């Protein structure tokens, strides 16, 4: 059974091409069932890629079928086999083939594809290994630790000040999309969006409703500041909306202010107040840039892990080629052993039950010991010599031939 991968991704195709071959969950499951056709198939479809993984005895036909399903005449595709296909999936699961290295969403998408696929022994092992490798890379490297967007950087910085954000009160100044994204990132980490204020009361009410927060009039901003731990400001006001004088005495409680507006909403001198930490959009973008370069540095370590795991998979896959030969060899040996014992039955009649068991055990041990080294060598050589070694073993032991035919066959010249 060969492993075949046919697919396209953001590296080859723009979004207008990718969307033509994108599949939803049901579509992916249905296509997997159709393509399996006596073999195995899994369809991985995300916003950045559509990939078909197949394991089939007729790999050329399977590949042609998959390419046809992905509109090969109109879409640029990559086609990979066996070890290369495994390495690719491991890189995908580790987030190394993603736009943002180490992003976490892909691991869930690989899992969904695996669960919806038409799996057999090869793809089952491949996808389970891919999920394990994806987790291993994220545990053993820092590739997924740092934030990759301005809003997640803001939330990560708030955590650096407060630790657990549970119980932290967030005040949103401005009710636009930028505020909402930052609020979502903070809420996802446990913060409470306590109040929303905006010059446009209607927008403030709508956003407040989304987070079960209070919509407060803009002129009450100063009063709300007393309660807040985190302030996110993103208005379109041409003037500053938050001055240093408006911040009440914090009595040692930190205040984290995120100014996402251009022009800036917050008086920069506010950063001089003790226990007050102010970050504007440039500061946050610098954090994101540093964070992304850190992810790229970690990607080199992640590649080494993925490479090592892909080699392990290749070795396992190669060992599959020798399994039938090993089974035939054992079967042949057992047939000979039991046949010879049957022939000697007349001479063994006088033996007691215990002596018979000893003879059985002895002959089995001799056979096992004789076969042990050839079997181990076949498994070891499977990764390097491949099918050639199996053929030699078949020829040497006459596997697949009738026992008497194998014994009577004339030696090759």
């Amino acid at each position: 059974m060969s492993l075949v991968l046919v697919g396209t991704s953001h590296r080859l195709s723009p979004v207008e091409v990718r969307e033509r071959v994108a599949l939803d969950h049901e579509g992916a499951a249905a296509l997997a069932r159709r393509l399996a056709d006596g073999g195995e198939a899994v369809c991985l479809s995300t916003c950045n890629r559509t990939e078909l993984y197949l394991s089939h005895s007729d790999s050329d036909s399977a590949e042609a079928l998959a390419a046809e399903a992905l509109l090969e005449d109109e879409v640029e595709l990559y086609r990979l086999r066996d070890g290369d296909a495994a390495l690719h999936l491991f890189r995908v699961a580790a987030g190394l083939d993603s736009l943002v290295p180490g992003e976490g969403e892909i691991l869930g998408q690989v899992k969904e594809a695996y669960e919806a696929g038409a799996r057999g022994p090869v793809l089952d092992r491949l996808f389970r290994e891919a999920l394990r490798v994806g987790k291993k890379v994220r545990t053993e490297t820092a590739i997924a630790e740092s934030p990759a967007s301005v809003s997640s950087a803001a939330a990560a910085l708030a955590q650096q000040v407060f630790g657990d954000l549970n119980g932290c009160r967030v005040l949103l100044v401005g009710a636009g999309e930028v505020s909402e994204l930052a609020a979502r990132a903070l809420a996802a980490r446990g913060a409470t969006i306590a109040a929303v204020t905006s010059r446009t009361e209607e927008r403030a009410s709508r956003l407040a409703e989304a987070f079960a927060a209070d919509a407060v009039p803009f002129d009450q901003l100063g009063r709300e500041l007393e309660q807040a731990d985190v302030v996110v400001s993103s208005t379109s006001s041409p003037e500053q909306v938050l001055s240093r004088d408006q911040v009440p005495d914090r009595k040692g409680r930190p205040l984290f202010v995120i100014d996402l507006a251009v022009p800036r909403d917050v008086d920069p001198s506010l950063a001089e107040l003790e226990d007050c930490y102010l970050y504007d959009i440039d500061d946050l973008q610098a954090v994101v840039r540093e964070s992304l370069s850190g992810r790229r540095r970690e990607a080199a370590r992640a590649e080494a892990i993925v490479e090592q795991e892909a080699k392990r998979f290749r070795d396992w896959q190669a060992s599959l080629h020798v399994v039938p030969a090993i089974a035939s060899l054992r079967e042949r040996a057992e047939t000979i052993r039991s046949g010879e014992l049957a022939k000697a039955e007349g001479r063994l009649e006088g033996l007691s039950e215990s002596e018979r068991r000893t003879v059985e055990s002895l002959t089995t041990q001799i056979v096992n010991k004789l076969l042990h080294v050839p079997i181990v060598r076949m498994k070891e050589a499977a990764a390097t010599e491949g099918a050639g070694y199996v053929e030699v073993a078949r020829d040497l032991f006459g596997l697949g031939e009738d026992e008497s035919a194998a014994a009577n066959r004339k030696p090759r010249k």
Partner: protein
Amino acid sequence: MAELLFWPVLLAYGEAAVAFAGDARRPGSMGRIGTWGVRVGWLVQTALLVLQAARADGFPWATWAGSLSLFVWLVVGAYLIWGCRPRFRLLGLVVMPLAALLLALSYAGGGVDASGRSGYSTLFLVLHVGLVMAGFAGLTLAAALAALYLWQERELKRRSSTVLRFRAPSLVSLEGLFARTVAFSLPVLTLGMAAGFARLRHGSQLDPLIVLTVLTWAVYGTFLLLRFGAGWRGRRAAYTTLAGFALVLALQLSLQMGHFA
């Protein structure tokens, strides 16, 4: 035998210091290797101290070097409470080089010798030296936490783009932690001092070290009053903890003046 145990301890603490430095540059397996260095080193040092206690005819840490070895063991033991957590590994960068250095100093002064003798009654020294050292160890750890707080606070104030690169604990948890560590260590120090004063009544004279200890106690006592009574937090609290630690350091280094001799 004591010599045989000393070198693995120094090696393990040194290895931990180097590994934590590596972990700060590139977080990952180095941090775990460092933590194991601390654990193994501390366990071997425990065996070393037990051996010293078993061999000595009395309390074996009656010299400045001996007390320094005990102090290192207490500091590392206290660090192990938090140091195993990834976010507190940066603390190891402060604690472990100091531990390795002080242990080497203790060795140079004969502090790991297994034939120490003490002219004092065992009970007095166990209570006095043991509790004072434990208090100092706690205050050392509090100072390390305060130093980490100040570094982290400065990075956040400067809006450094690398502030998230090092996995440090948050400001709020560091601040709470160093205050609580002082709150735990000061009563221990107080008990140790009380044991010392109890002995003074029997005719010993007041030396400058005792005056310095009382001054240290007063600094930390004032800190606790302000921190828990008046809500004194943040940078000022961290600087006060460090000022108190400067006195602790002076006390530690002054022990060779003969206080325990």
